[in-house]
């Protein structure tokens, strides 16, 4: 079979799984695959701002290396809060301008070991944190949503979903404290997830908090994510994901509870339509209710997150007033003002919430509901932008340290991606992939890409 040229690969929009198969079959080369990603970056990133730094030389060197490893030849990129030896590591902050990392983050080491080809560093909110508001005051302009460039990409891993949805990369890694991987995946129509804490390493990443940060992949399909996680952690998720839905017990969270608005109508309709698909394929579906509302989880996560961020980055707030962006400044000011009794009240709530969740796991393998309650908002338009980030059902999984996954489940009338959010007990990633891989195999949503 003749090797495909870059423009053919580009128009084909390979998934990661398809790219591995094509590489194995000799239909494409690693260099050809890399060329196709670089071509998309060249064509589109001047308008989308997904990358802060493209390492074409390093990527070409890696692509020429003989293929070895489960992800050999796969072009990928990482949020600029993770260190990569010899590359800029700015976290989109004036505090780190000119900084070159001396060593690889553990995650980078792991992916290099599997033969993946690193393309470069992806855009982020300053220090991988913020308030949900966009102030247009960071060194790099905010990334743009490829489904509608006037729309927000989700944060704080702002470039990760953009890069994967457009085919600039077949895999991106970000970090997630209260949704910073899952929200960008939701906004851009990708699959994004966090694993049970400790399963993926944080060493070499700029911390946001002490106790909530988790790295996570963004891919076009759930199958792609399973392949990546199997390569990094060896959990057998790809095999598990092919087990089908028969007997899978799914609890449905149809609303966030008191304190938050109802989800947008199109998100609600997509959930119901998706449940019909799951039910028709053998899943056992029943209603579920969280032990406390998502709004209470947000209050606790805000107190914990802001206080811990301020404890870590206090010096930037005190000594860097001429360099700090408004969102990071507000986050650290807020964190500096958290009363100790409120921080501890949040931690007591976190413990109580985490200890209450196992009662749900006696009835359900997966809890399925919404991630964001709204469609991707207009970038920088308040209160839309902040509401999109804060009014979510993502924080329960953050507080309790549960594995959780966001997946595209359709498109709005205006062409924006819809999504749902699933979570499972600690160690229960296999159930997430049974749901997500079965659903994506039964639906057409992975055929559509942002033009």
């Amino acid at each position: 079979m003749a090797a495909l040229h870059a423009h053919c690969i580009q128009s084909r929009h390979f998934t990661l799984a398809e790219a591995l198969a094509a590489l194995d079959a000799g239909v494409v080369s690693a260099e050809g695959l890399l060329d196709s990603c670089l071509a998309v970056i060249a064509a589109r990133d001047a308008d989308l701002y997904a990358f802060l730094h493209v390492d074409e030389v390093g990527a070409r060197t890696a692509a020429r290396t003989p293929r070895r490893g489960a992800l050999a030849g796969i072009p990928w990129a990482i949020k600029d809060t993770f260190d990569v030896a010899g590359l800029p590591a700015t976290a989109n902050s004036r505090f780190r301008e000119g900084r070159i990392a001396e060593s690889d983050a553990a995650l980078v080491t792991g992916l290099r070991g599997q033969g993946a080809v690193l393309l470069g560093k992806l855009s982020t909110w300053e220090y991988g944190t913020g308030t949900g508001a966009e102030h247009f005051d960071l060194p790099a302009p905010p990334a743009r949503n490829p489904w509608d460039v006037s729309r927000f990409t989700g944060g704080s891993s702002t470039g990760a979903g953009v890069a994967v949805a457009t085919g600039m990369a077949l895999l991106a890694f970000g970090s997630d404290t209260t949704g910073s991987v899952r929200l960008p995946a939701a906004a851009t129509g990708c699959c994004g997830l966090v694993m049970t804490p400790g399963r993926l390493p944080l060493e070499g990443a700029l911390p946001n908090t002490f106790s909530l940060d988790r790295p996570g992949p963004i891919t076009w399909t759930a199958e792609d994510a399973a392949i990546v996680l199997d390569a990094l952690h060896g959990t057998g998720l790809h095999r598990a994901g092919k087990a089908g839905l028969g007997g899978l017990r799914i609890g449905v969270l149809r609303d966030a509870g008191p304190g938050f608005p109802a989800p947008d109508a199109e998100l609600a309709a997509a959930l119901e339509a998706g449940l019909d698909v799951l039910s028709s394929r053998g899943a056992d579906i029943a209603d579920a209710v969280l032990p406390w509302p998502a709004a209470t989880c947000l209050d606790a996560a805000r107190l914990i997150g802001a206080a811990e961020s301020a404890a870590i980055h206090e010096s930037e707030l005190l000594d860097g007033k001429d360099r700090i962006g408004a969102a990071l400044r507000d986050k650290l000011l807020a964190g500096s003002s958290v009363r100790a009794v409120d921080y501890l009240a949040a931690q007591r709530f976190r413990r109580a919430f985490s200890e209450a969740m196992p009662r749900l796991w006696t009835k359900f393998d997966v809890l399925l509901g919404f991630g964001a309650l709204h469609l991707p908002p207009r970038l920088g338009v308040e209160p839309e932008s902040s509401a999109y980030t804060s009014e979510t059902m993502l924080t329960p999984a953050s507080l309790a340290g549960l594995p959780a996954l966001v997946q595209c489940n359709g498109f709005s009338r205006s062409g924006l991606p819809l999504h749902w959010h699933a979570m499972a007990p600690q160690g229960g990633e296999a159930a997430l992939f049974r749901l997500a891989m079965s659903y994506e195999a039964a639906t057409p949503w992975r055929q559509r890409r942002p033009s």
Partner: protein
Amino acid sequence: MAPEEAVMTPAEEAARLAELAAMMIQAGARLPRDWQKELRPANPSVDDINEGGDKDDE
């Protein structure tokens, strides 16, 4: 170059701090407080709940 929006006068910063502190106090006030005395807070010094990354789904 300094991000213009972020640079505040001391008075502006004091006002912003008061506004954000009030938001944090309100968030704390919304949390449940009627815990049994025995409920200890989660330990923030423990980074990872599953530190060993046990593969218990196999």
